Every structure is written in C-alpha cells, then in structure tokens.
C-alpha cells in the first residue's frame, strides 16, 4: 500500500472500509508526523492525541460493526477557531490561550458524527485577522515549500498541515480569503462555500457577515466528501440557509462541455505576476480542451473590494470582540484596580497589535459622524459589487482568475506595512463581500513555490465549482505534489 500520509481522504476512506488499515493506525501515523514536524512548521496549536486515539478506537468499532459512514475513521485537523468541547480553542490569541470550550461547533459536531477523527487544532492568525499567519500569539507557521516563507493566512496552519501531509484535510474559515490564499500559497485545494452554506455556530466570530467555514484538502474530491458532511441548515445559526445539501461527490465527473467560464478583466489587470498569469492561462487551456468556453466579463466595482472590506470587517469585529472583556472567561489582567482598568488591561494585554488595529478601525467607522461616510458607504459599495457578480453570472457559469497576486512571500516582509499585507487579498475579498462560493486549486509553481487558480461560482454553486476543480485535477497533478521535505 502507498504511504498513508500521501493518500487522499477518498483513498483513506476506501482503505478503512476494506480494512487495509485501522483508524487507530492512521491516527498514530499522522500524530507521529505532526509531532515530528511541529518544531519546524508550527502548524498546530494543540495536538489532541488522546482524544484522537479514543475517537479512532470508536471509529474502528463502527467499521468492524458495519455501521460506518463514508468518512468513518478518517483523521483531520480543525482550525483553532472552531469550538471543540473539552479541548482548547485559542483562536490564535493570548485572550483565549487557556479557553476550553464547553461545547462543539456545529461543523465539529457534524464531522464527529460522521466518524471523522480530530488530530488537533491548527495554528492561525489571531482571531483570523491576517494574511500570513504571523499575527498568531503562538508564533508564525512556516510554509512547507520554503520555511523562510509564510504559508498565508489566516488558515495558515490548516494549509501547511495539509501541504506537509500532517493531516489529510483540515477545516478552515474564510472572511476575506483566509482559506483560498493559504491554499494557493501552500499548493493545496481550498473551498470557501456560499455564505450560509455551513453553520457558523461555534466558529469564533471575526466578521459575521463575511465569515464562512470551509475546508483545505488535497483534492476537490476530498472537499466534496467532507463538505457534504459539514454543510447544511442549522437552526442555531439564523444566517445558515435552509436548502438541501447536494451529493457533491456524485456531481464531480460531470463533463465540462459547454461550461461558460468568465475571465475577470479586473483580475488580469496590472499588479498580477506574469508567471502566475501564464499558469492561469495554461490552466484555462486545460479546461477549454474539455469543452469549456471562455468569455471576458467585467466587474467594474471589484477594485473597490479591499477598501470596502477594510471598513465592513473591522466594524463587525470591533463589536464581535467586545465580549472578550476579562469578566466571564479568557484572559484577565493581574489585580485590576477597578472596572475600567480590568477592561483596558485585559484587552490591552490579551489582544495583539493587528487585532487592536482592526478594533480601533472598526470603532472609528461606526462612530457618530463617521458612520455614513464609512460604514454606510461601504455597505452600498458592497451591494454594487454583489450586483456586478450577479450580472456576470447571468452570462457565465463560473469566474476564473488568480487566487493571489504573488506566490508566498518571506516571513516579516510585510509585517511593517499593514496595507501591503491587506492587498494580498485583492482577488479573494470580492467573493466574501458577495457571499459567493469560491475555490483555490494548485495550478503550477513559480520558482518552486505553488500558485493557485481561483474559481468563483454563483450562490450555492458549490457542486459546479467542485466539478470544474475535479475535472481540472483529473488532467493535472499539481495537487498531488508534496513539498520536497515532506514526501517521506
């Protein structure tokens, strides 16, 4: 049998069902890899070995007893933003460094019910605010393709873990590109579903109208299998949508003949790395060879995405993070003098610089006298961007472009200039503002570093997205390449 760690979720599930391997063996094997690479990658905040082996043992019983589901016994990692009962949920922050959630997030609960085994909690930018995983209180994650470079963020730990084959798949979240950007920078597959497709219950909120849970996997096929298990209406999340979840795996093979692909004019404008553009165009050729047709589309308001996002997201975060006040749980300063001191020092010491920057920005844009000029205007522009996408999807089935303007940059390269860092999300933010599903799939390398192709779909068009990504992956092997130091 092939090396366990190189296998996809689909392959591992098949091996488990045919009893070629047990869930406990799998868990042990991945836990060993995680331990071995924790020091060099720092992809995990918690390694939950004990719980993993216990869950794996139960999965093996189910497998033996014949009541196993498609994913029973498959190990994965959870981004440390999802609450997990009995284990730490830190959100990459000192504020929650010792926080143990009394309950499971819906995503965690559903995957657990499907028999999926949790290996650990992956590192992330603090409260998912960052594009390089350098804002984590637990230290930066390193890119498995080049340890001097960032893995992207905020789901940097999940992307690095899957790229280094420390876990076959990992959950992640995406508010402005936090799944797709690290997926692209680490050479793995990432999917951010439609806003409302996956329950946000139990996912520590950053910007509620933009946050969406999703996955980082090796392949579109794996994403299809896992998404089917975690998606769907949840009565505990009023913004989750009451629509049936399709059998994503069943639609993967659908032919691409006649598929209308929109080339976003604004995505290929200035600022895009020539090498990346060459890879995207080559990827489009692969799809065209299968019968897809290309059409240029324009989203005139898309260039306003970044400023719009950096009003809306901080505004929501400034309010969402108000609950971390040192009163009921989380970090509390030593010996507060009075209530104000308790608030000021607990929050001042518990939050890192980027989180504070966004809280302050958000507080400012919501303040009396500034609300109309910033928050309200940003909401209007957000609507215009949404409308642009809607028009585009009257003409095309999916929109394709790059995921990031460049490949992975070096650690520390952008930490001194937040705006340069923010511009990393220039291609990904639009889908969040419009609530659209989007994926990133590996489509080549620039100087040994992976780059990603972004596919954006219409609302609840995950099935089509996964289908396009899967057909592309059937013809290419970029997604099967592991970083040199992590092949064995």
């Amino acid at each position, binding site marked *: 049998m092939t090396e366990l760690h190189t296998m996809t979720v689909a392959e591992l599930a098949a091996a488990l069902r045919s009893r070629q391997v047990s869930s406990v063996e799998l868990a042990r094997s991945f836990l060993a890899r995680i331990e071995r690479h924790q020091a060099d990658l720092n992809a995990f905040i918690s390694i939950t070995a004990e719980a993993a082996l216990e869950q794996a043992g139960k999965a093996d019983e189910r497998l033996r007893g014949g009541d196993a589901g498609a994913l029973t016994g498959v190990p994965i990692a959870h981004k440390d933003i999802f609450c997990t009962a009995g284990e730490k949920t830190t959100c990459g922050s000192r504020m929650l460094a010792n926080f143990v959630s009394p309950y499971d997030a819906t995503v965690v609960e559903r995957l657990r019910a499907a028999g999926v085994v949790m290996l650990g909690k992956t590192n992330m930018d603090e409260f998912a605010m960052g594009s390089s995983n350098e804002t984590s209180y637990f230290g930066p994650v390193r890119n498995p393709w080049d340890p001097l470079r960032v893995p992207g963020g905020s789901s940097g730990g999940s992307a690095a873990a899957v790229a280094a084959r420390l876990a076959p798949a990992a959950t992640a979240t995406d508010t402005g590109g936090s799944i797709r950007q690290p997926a692209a920078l680490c050479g793995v597959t990432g999917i951010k579903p439609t806003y409302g497709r996956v329950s946000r219950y139990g996912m520590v909120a950053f910007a509620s109208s933009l946050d969406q849970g999703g996955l980082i996997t090796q392949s579109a096929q794996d994403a299809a299998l896992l998404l089917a298990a975690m998606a769907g209406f949840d009565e505990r999340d*009023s*913004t989750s949508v009451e629509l049936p979840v399709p059998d994503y795996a069943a639609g993967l093979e659908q032919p691409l003949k006649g598929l209308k692909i929109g080339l976003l004019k604004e995505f290929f404008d200035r600022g895009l790395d020539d090498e990346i553009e060459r890879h995207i165009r080559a990827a489009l050729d692969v799809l065209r060879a299968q019968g897809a047709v290309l059409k240029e589309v324009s989203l005139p308001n898309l260039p306003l995405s970044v400023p719009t996002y950096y009003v809306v997201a901080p505004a929501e975060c400034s309010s969402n993070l108000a609950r971390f006040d040192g009163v009921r749980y989380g970090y509390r300063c030593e010996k507060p003098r009075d209530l104000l001191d308790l608030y000021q020092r607990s929050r001042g010491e518990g939050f890192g610089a980027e989180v504070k920057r966004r809280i302050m920005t958000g507080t400012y844009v919501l303040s009396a006298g500034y609300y109309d000029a910033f928050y309200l205007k940003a909401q209007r522009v957000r609507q215009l961007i949404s409308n642009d996408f809607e028009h585009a999807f009257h003409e095309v089935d999916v929109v394709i472009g790059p995921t990031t303007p460049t490949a992975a940059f070096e650690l520390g390269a952008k930490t001194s200039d937040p705006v340069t860092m923010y511009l990393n999300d220039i291609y990904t933010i639009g889908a969040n503002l419009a609530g659209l599903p989007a994926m990133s799939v590996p489509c080549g390398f620039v100087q040994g570093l992976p780059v990603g192709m972004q596919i954006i779909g219409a609302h609840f068009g995950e099935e089509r997205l996964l289908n396009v990504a899967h057909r592309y992956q059937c013809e290419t092997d970029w997604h099967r390449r592991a970083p040199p130091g992590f092949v064995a």
Partner: protein
Amino acid sequence: MEWQTVIGLEIHAQLATRSKIFSGSATTYGAPPNAQANLVDLAYPGVLPVLNAEAVRMAVKFGLAINARVMRRSVFARKNYFYPDLPKGYQISQYELPIVCGGAVDIVLEDGTDRRIGVTRAHLEEDAGKSLHEGLAGLSGALTGVDLNRAGTPLIEIVSEPQMHSAKEAVAYMKKIHTLVRYLGICDGNMQEGSFRCDANVSLRPRGAEKLGTRAEIKNLNSFRFVEKAINYEVARQIELLESGRQVTQETRLYDADRGETRSMRSKEEANDYRYFPDPDLLPVEIDQPYIDAVTADLPELPDQKAQRFISQHGLSAYDAGVLTAGAELADYYEAVVHELGGHPKVAANAVMGELAGLLNRDGLEIAASRVSARRLAGLLRRVVDNTISGKIAKDVIEAMWEQGQEADSIIQARGLRQITDESAIEAAIDAVMIANPSQLADYRAGKEKLFGFFVGQVMKATGGKANPARLNELLKKKLGG
C-alpha cells in the same frame, strides 16, 4: 414667564414569553442568580442569537392594538457599550427600522377631558442582566456580582411622542399602556419586579413656543407614583433654573425615591456613542399580510372597545366604563356579575366599584383574589333588586360574605335581614314610634318638617333597618300628616 411642560415616555414592557428573545433560557422571575443563563446569554465565543418568534408575535399584537403600522421589514441592530451585565458588549435592539411605527392611545383625564397621545414607535430588544452589590453568595467587600438571569429577556420599548404636559397626563398614558399590555397578555405588568418601567423625558418651553426646550431624561421609574413625583420634582427644578436665568443641561437623571428628588447620572458629553449598526447575525424580520391577519384575528376585545360597549349596551357612564375596563380581570368580573344577575348593569357596576373595590382595597387584594366571587355577588344583588334587602343592608351582608365565605341568602336568612315590605308591619312600627315621641310629633305637625328624618331613623331602628325604605317613606308621610 409661563412655562409649558413637555413630557415624552419610553416605556419598557417585558414580554411574557416562556424563553428569552435570542436563547432558549427560561425567563421565570426570582430564580437563583445565573440559573437561567446559558452559553448564548453568557456570550461564549462562537454562539449566535436565534430570534424567538413569540416575541415578534407579541410586538405585532401591540402594534395592532394601538392602530400602528406593523412594519413589513424590521432590522435588529447592535447597541455597543461595555458593562459587566452586558455579556456581549452590545445589546441587540432595533434602531433605524423598528417593528412598530406610529400609533396612538386615548386617555381620559380626571376632569373628564379626552386626549390622544401618539406613539412614535415600539421596538423589540433584549434586557441586560443585573449587577448585584449585595445578596450574592460569596460576595464580600467592594465586590460586585453579576446575575445574568434577566439578560436576554424580551422587551418592547414603547416610545411616545412628546405630547404630555403634566405628570398626571404622563401617568394616565402609562396606565393606559399598562392596561393594554395586560389585556393583550403580552406583559404581566408587574412593576415591582421591573416587568413594566419607564424613562421620562422632561423639558419646558415658554407657553406658545414651538421649539422644544432642553430635556432631561429620568431613568428607570418603576411605579406610577414615582413617575408622578419624579416629573413634578423635575419640572419644579427646571422652572427654578430657567427663572433664575440658568440653563437646563441635557443629561440623564436618576430618581431617588427615598429623598423624592432627581439626581444627575451623566451629561450629554459623557454619553456613550453606541455605534449602532445592523446585527449581521440576525436576518431582517419579514412580516406579511397573512401573518398580520392571523394576529389580528387573535386580538382580544381591547379596553376602549369594551368601554364603548359598556356605555352603549349597559348604559354606564364614560367614567364608570373607564374604571371597569382598566383591567381585563375587573371587566370580566363585572360582566360575570351582570350575566348572573340577568341585567341591572348599573347595580352591578356600583357594587363592583363601591363595596367590592372597598374591600379589595382594604385587604390589598387584586380582583382575581376576591373573597366574594362574581356569582355570589350577583346572588346578593338579586336580593337588592327584588327588594328582599335594602342597599344599606347589602353593605353589611357583603362584608359578612367576605369574612365568612358564605352565600348572601344564608347570611340574610341567618341574620333575619329580610326587608319588611308588609304594610301592616311597617304601620305598626310607625304607630309605636309616634306614641313614644309625642313632643316630636307635635313639633312636626307644627311645621318642623326637618323632623321627618328623625322618624325614619326611629322606625328603621325599631325594625332593625329592615323596613323597605320607599314603603316606609310613603306610609310615614301619610301617618305623620294625620
């Protein structure tokens, strides 16, 4: 200068839902601290609010009852501020788009004048928890405890137009809303427990002026008496300021019931910037016509309609109808008496508002706890109507019924209180009194007609008060006249 007082009220009514507005926790009053606070109420990381449909239905009921517009689309917003009894760091309320807009209630003042008071809006929101400075186990020294049982309890905040001009008007308006929410069954109206409370905005302007003066907001008044006293104090305070050439500062004030005065809490400069914005965790509340129709069909008869019916069908005065419809239970009791009695609404109204109300008042009881049931009261009134006893005797009988818990007839029987209507018996009593009081008789006959009352009293005394008064009058007049 002559000043006009301008008052607007913001009434907070706790909705009588079983669970909280955004979580499944119970809302029962008086549970041990924090026994009714779940992860959503505690604002744990990752939890989300889910709107209680019953709270929406109750707010819609209220909107329909005051002839307001029930908005097809209303939006929850976050009101951001830090306080230990506000776990999320924001209160979920409605701001720009409330669920109920425009509407009015009619009030009747003591002098009988009618006034219509506009309601600007009514919106749904969650209550905060309570900070406990004492009475929490383990609490000592300067520590403050937090009880989150109340956090997330549904409220409607009812904002009036600034259309009231005296403390009495404000109280009449507040009482009207109080009556209404209890009729609708959407609030228990318990002011001591804080289920119904208000903030009063008070300002003065020169009589005849259009522009409103600077207002002070008096927070958290939880009794009608406090509302009246606080407003009167505030008006006097503001007059004194203005008359001495000083200005009223826009500020929030607290009413100190022990001292009977209002005190500054915080000025406008110190006021919070609440940074309201639409809550992204909740969808807008969409309400369609079929929903409104269903709630409308479910509305009970409202106090004004009931009062109108009592006036037109029962022939009651507007004042009586108003008193009897001030509470749904009282109106129901009165109607039950009329029904049992098979008519005679005025007799029933007088008894309910007179003797019965007196006894309830004396013992501090609500009508629901009356020791004389509507059926028994009707039994008593039947004996007045059929002349078995006089109205005066009835007062004694109802007291006995109240104390002994018996039917009117058994008391009348046991005490031999049946009225004497037999003419010969009354005549015999009159004769005896005339013989016993020859000088008074002579005086009377000499023209001292005032002595008539004396003879009535004497005969009544002789008959133990049982002589039928009308018959007695008639016979006495005849006999005394010789």
